[in-house]
Structure formats: structure tokens, C-alpha cells
């Protein structure tokens, strides 16, 4: 409490992951754990990017492939391919990315709005971007990503 009282700068931490030549940041508070790629069980009547479900210590957790979600082809699952387990509204999801790279500290004031640009991602899943040295990290809006991923499914059901 006392640290916050003095400084107006709110710091956030992001887990950065690599995906198709780009670097994305996931709010670290949403990240539950990071695990190596394991085979999942396919779920019928689900969109292609929903790879299936895995057993997370007895809980059944759906896993989606961020590449496929963003319409980038997945070549193959390699030893560095990882599943990041995130929790949104008390529900757990696995997100498959190419690799995990870093943890990034950034003040909220450093987050810039996303211009409309030719990334592989629809800008609606991004909440901003941060420039770090020469790199650029796109911040994923996990809530939105999973909510948007839910809606068309419910409609189809």
C-alpha cells in the first residue's frame, strides 16, 4: 500500500512470448503456469484453433493455438513450443505459443495505443504496445481474446 501511495506510476509486468516473428506480452497476473507442449484431446464441433483439452492436475482445460487463432499456419509443434495457462474470470485456458522469452516491467504510461497496421493480429485483441530498445511488444488483451473466442461458439451451439 505504502509504495503505491507515493508514486503515481503504476507498474505492470508482462510475460512476453514469441509468435510468428512477433513478440506479444501477456499480463503476468493472468498467467497461471507455463508448460511444455503435450498432446491434447480433440473436442468435436469446435473451431480449428481450439486444439482440444488437456489434463491440468485433474481439471479439464481447453487449449487454443494462438497462431491458428490469428490465421497463421502452424508448421509443427517443437520442443520449444509452450502452452501458457491463463486464468480469466476464474476459468483456465491454455494458449499455445512458439516460445516464451522474457518478463517485461513497464509503467502503464509507456503503453502506447495500437495504430492500425499490418500485423498478423487483428488489432481488436491488443490493448497496446510497448517499445523496448529496438523491440516492439504487442500487449494481448487476454480477456477479450477468450471472450471473443467464446461468443461465436455459443452461437453455433
Amino acid at each position, binding site marked *: *500500500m505504502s509504495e503505491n501511495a507515493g508514486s503515481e506510476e503504476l507498474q505492470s509486468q508482462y510475460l512476453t512470448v514469441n509468435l510468428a516473428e512477433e513478440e506479444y506480452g501477456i499480463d503476468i497476473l493472468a498467467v497461471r503456469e507455463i508448460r511444455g507442449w503435450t*498432446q*491434447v*484431446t*480433440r*473436442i*468435436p*464441433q*469446435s473451431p480449428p484453433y481450439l486444439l*482440444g*483439452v*488437456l*489434463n491440468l492436475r*485433474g*481439471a*479439464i*482445460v*481447453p487449449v487454443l493455438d494462438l497462431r491458428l487463432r490469428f490465421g497463421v499456419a502452424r508448421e509443427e509443434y517443437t520442443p520449444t513450443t509452450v502452452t501458457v495457462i491463463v486464468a480469466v474470470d476464474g*476459468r*483456465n*485456458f491454455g494458449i499455445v505459443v512458439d516460445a516464451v522469452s522474457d518478463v517485461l516491467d513497464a509503467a502503464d504510461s509507456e503503453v502506447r495505443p495500437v495504430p492500425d497496421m499490418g500485423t498478423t493480429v487483428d488489432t481488436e485483441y491488443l490493448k497496446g504496445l510497448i517499445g523496448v530498445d529496438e523491440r516492439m511488444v504487442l500487449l494481448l488483451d487476454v480477456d477479450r481474446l477468450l471472450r471473443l473466442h*467464446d461468443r461465436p*461458439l*455459443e452461437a453455433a*451451439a
Partner: protein
Amino acid sequence: MSNAGLAQFQQVFIEESLEGLDTMESSLLALDEGGDGELVHTIFRAAHSIKGGAATFGFPEMASFTHEAESLLDEVRGGKRAIDKPIIELMLRSVDCLRGMFDRARAGEPLNDATSDGVRGELAAMMGREAPAQAGPARRAGDQAGAWMIQFKPHAGMLASGNDPLRLIRELAGLGELVVEADLSRLPALARLDPSECHLGWSIELKAPVRREDIAAVFDWVEDECDLSIEPKPTAVVTPAPAPAAAPAPANIADAAAARGTREASAESSSVRVAIDKIDSMINLVGELVITQAMLDTFREEFDPSRLPLLQQGLTQLARHARELQESVMGIRMLPIASVFNRFPRLVRDLSQKLGKQVKLDLHGEQTELDKTVLEKIGDPMVHLVRNAIDHGLEVPEKRRAAGKHEMGTLKLDAFHRGGNIVVEVSDDGAGLNREAIVRKAVERGLIKSGDGLSDEAVGDLIFQPGFSTAEVTTDLSGRGVGMDVVRRNVSDLGGSVVVRSKPAQGSVFTITLPLTLAIIDGLTAAVGEERYIVPLVSIIESVQLKPDALKTVAGGGELFRFRGEYLPVLRLHELFGCEGAKRTIEDGLLIVVEGDGSRVGLFVDGLVGQQQAVVKSLEANYRRVQGVSGATILADGSVALIVDIAGLVRLHGRRKAA
């Protein structure tokens, strides 16, 4: 007036009071049938505890309502008034009103409504008085202020009664911003200080426009053990800046505590009461398990082949203990079906009075235990069946006499174990199903071509068809038909089935078969391509391997095969679930004949891998419901397998064909 500290007790109070209301209701019904005077005392005691609890836990409206009912009961108890039909009627309605109040209390809505005011008035009128003024939020002047000054001086012995001043201050902090100043004047010299006594006093400024009662409620428990004054703070006086050192720290802690309390209260969950002997037996089993584990642990240090028999024995023991522990843990979720049965005496009484019929209710097997989830969901379908039995099954007394039966019809509810299932039967000795009317209606609705050659069983089954359940049908038919398809759907959602047997002029029996538990099922593991699916054993009739020519293709792409004189449709699991690498030719794979939702189909899979008990895990917890899948389970290798839902598959198949 709810605050974080009381919320959890309120929950317990509500649960206990609902049980009290059940007692009141069943005792009233027993009185109605000429029970003895002791019942009046039972009812009075139940009402009294609810009244006391309601006042303590901050439901004044409820307390005043119950007070009226209690006063009336007191007059009966004291012999001033004889118990008669109108009183019982009114008391039953009061019970309903209180139930409504508890529902609203849970939802956080205002407790009084038009009905409760009406019943309260009737209670008072019966005792020959005017309805009392509402115990609502009537306020005296000065009860409301923008800020309050509270002087709180606990007596020295307050701590001994388990009351913690810090908790009270935290609760106050939940009401608004606090400035707390400790009064150290009573603090004795260190040598004479007794740490078990309270020497401190506090002067608290609460900067929030709350009601006096809200503040007083915080101190409810310690009223007699402290000197307390609550005064509105004069608004004219300029509030001095709070002393920075003394106040903020405790106030902040209190804030956080209050916030945590609220969160805990909002994460509401239902609870189960468990008999202590069930818990004791579990503790015993865990003890055994630990001993076995310790024994097996010795093999880690040195393993000598001569001790192999010991190892095998240990593993056998471990398996046995694990199974027993599993059974007894599952047992926690098992509750007697009496809690569902108990709602029927009232329903039967009300309905039979309304319809001018005489009905005797016969309850059997109330102690049969069912999974709590099943129990919660079986109530509504049973109400449907009971209502139908009285409404359409049992005849009016004149008709019964004419048919040579006793005027009093009998409705029997029974619950018992059969195999791995629980069977619940609702039977009546009424007129039975009207075969001609059902067949006529079914033909009209296009469900069948004609009734010729249909077995009684098949005719009975027709009433469960959707579309057979409109109001028009019921009135026309003088048979059953109110939402029977809903009954069947509800039961099959629980993994069970419902069938009817009926004999003209002798009555009908509705038989509901339910699984013992929803948490673990017996299933066969079926392979489809690379994938494994669990097929619940209860829905499997048998599996067959077909010859290539046994398959008949019908126009529209459907496939049928002949099974014991019937033609059943073939559902190819790999098509429905889109599995790759599955066998396509019918003679290579296996047809599992399964039954779901009353219809039989052949499920085509590659083959069966084995049988296993599957611990059912929810897909919905993290994802959503998937049609044709009732859940998932974890296989021995740690991977996930889906459990197929036969009824869902049948519906899915129907939709695919229609599309």
C-alpha cells in the same frame, strides 16, 4: 443491515430455518389428519427458534411476522383456542410466506411483499386485533446523520467472552471511513497489567451517512459488556484533520479485512451436512492408507526379492483402501430421498382438496440415499408425475365407487436400490392410461400411422414424445400429458430413464431409474481412429459385429441395421465427431447398441479397448457444453478422454440428417 461478519451466520440461519419450516409444515399436516397435541408444541418451538434467529441475524420483518404466527400458536398451546381447519390453513400459508421471505433474504431483496402483509393481517385478525405497524425501516429523528461519534469502552472482562474489539472496528470500517482514537487512560502499570483483560477504550468517528441501527448492530454481541454511546456528529463543527499517526494504520487494515469479508460472503456455495460417523470412518480409512503407504515406503530403501509377496500384499491393501475411501467420500454426497418426498404430503393435500378427490399418500424407502445433485434435480420431474397422477390418474370418489374401488385413491412413492441404480416409482391405483385417446392423439399429431400392433409399452412411451404435451391434449385426453417430454429430458440429463406401465382401471406406475452418483460412472472405452471415448455402461445394450450386407441404406443417406426384429439407425461416431483415421467399412468395426432418451441406435466405432470406472470431470468449468459429450475423464496415462452422451448424440444425428 448486513455486514461481512454476520453474513456467514445468516447463511447457516437460513438453512436451519428452512429445515424448521419443513418441520412446521409436516407437523401441521399431521395435525390436520388428527395428530396429537404434542405436535402443537413442536410447531411452536420451530416458530420460536425462527423468530429468535431472525431478530438476532437482522431480519426484523421476519421476526415480527413469525411473532404473529407464534402468538396465535401460543393461544392454541395455552388452550385458549382449539386447533381447527382455518388455523391450520392459515399457518400453512404463513409457512409459505416465510419461505418466500427466506428466498428474498437470500436474493437480498426487501422481505415484505403483498402476500406476507396480507397473511400477517389475517393472523392478527384471527386473534382479534388490528395488524401491527410494519417493523420496517421506521426512523426516529436523529437516527440518520452524516457522521457519528462512537464512544466504545469495553468492560475488562469482554475479551474472556471471545469478543475481539478489532473485529468490531473492522466491521465499522465496512460502513465507511473511520477515525479511531485509542483511550489509554485505564491502562494500569505494567506490573499490574493482566493481559487477559481489556484496558483500552476507543473513540471512533465514522464519516458515513448510515443509520443508527446499522452501527448498533455491529455492537449487538457486546451490548452488555461495554459502555457504548452513539451520537450524531454535529455537522456545524468543522471536522478536524485526522491525526495522521494514530488513525490511518488500523483503518487501512480494517478496510482490507472488510473487503476480504465481502468477497468471502459473495462466493456463496451450498453446503452439505455430514453425519459424524461418516467422517470418522473416513478418518479411519485415511489412517489405514497412511499405514499401508509407510509399509510400502520401506521398499524404497532396500528391495529384496524375497519380500515380493509382502509388496504384492501391500499393493492389494492399497487398492482396497483406495476403493473404500472412494466409496465413503462419495457417500458424503449421498443424502436420503426423504428431503424430496417430504414436500409431497402438502402438495397432495392441496391438490386433492382443490380437485375434490380423496387421496392417501403412501411413502416408502425415504431413507434411500441419492447423490445431492441428483436429489436437487429430481424434485421437479417428480412433482410433475405426482400432479399428473392426482389430476388425471386418480378418479373422483363417485367414479371410483362405480368401478368398485375404495373411494380413497392411493398414491404411492417408493425409492429403492436395484443393481447399481436407484429406482424411484410413482404409482397410483387410478384409471390407467387411456390407450385409445393416446393413439388417436398420436395419429393426429403424426407421431404414428396407426395404433395397430403397438405394444402397451410403446403406447405408454408415446406420452413422453415432445408435442404430446399441450394443454389441449390434457383436457381432451383425460389422460396424462403435461410436460412429460420435459420429465423425460430432466431425468435423462441426470443419466437416468423413465418408463410407464399401465393397466386400465388398475392404475399406472412411472418408474424412474437413476444412477447412484454422477461423479463416477462405469464405462467402456471405445477407440475411434486415434481417439478414445468412454461410453457409459448403463446405456449399452450389447455390441455386435455386422456383415457387410446387414446394412440397409435408406433414401436421404441414413443407414439402418436389423437388431432383434427392429431396424435401428446407425450413428457413425467418426462422422459425428469428425475423427480422422477411423474405420469406415461396417464389417471392420463394431456396432455398440445403445439406448438414450428412449430410442435405440447403433453406435459405430473401431472397437472396444476396455472397461473402466471413469471419474466424471466437467468440460463446462473451463470451457462450455459440447453436444454429444456429457463430460470428460482422465485415463490411466494422464490423457483426457471424452464421455459420450447418447441422448445428445441422437439429437445431434437427427439435426445433421435434417440439415
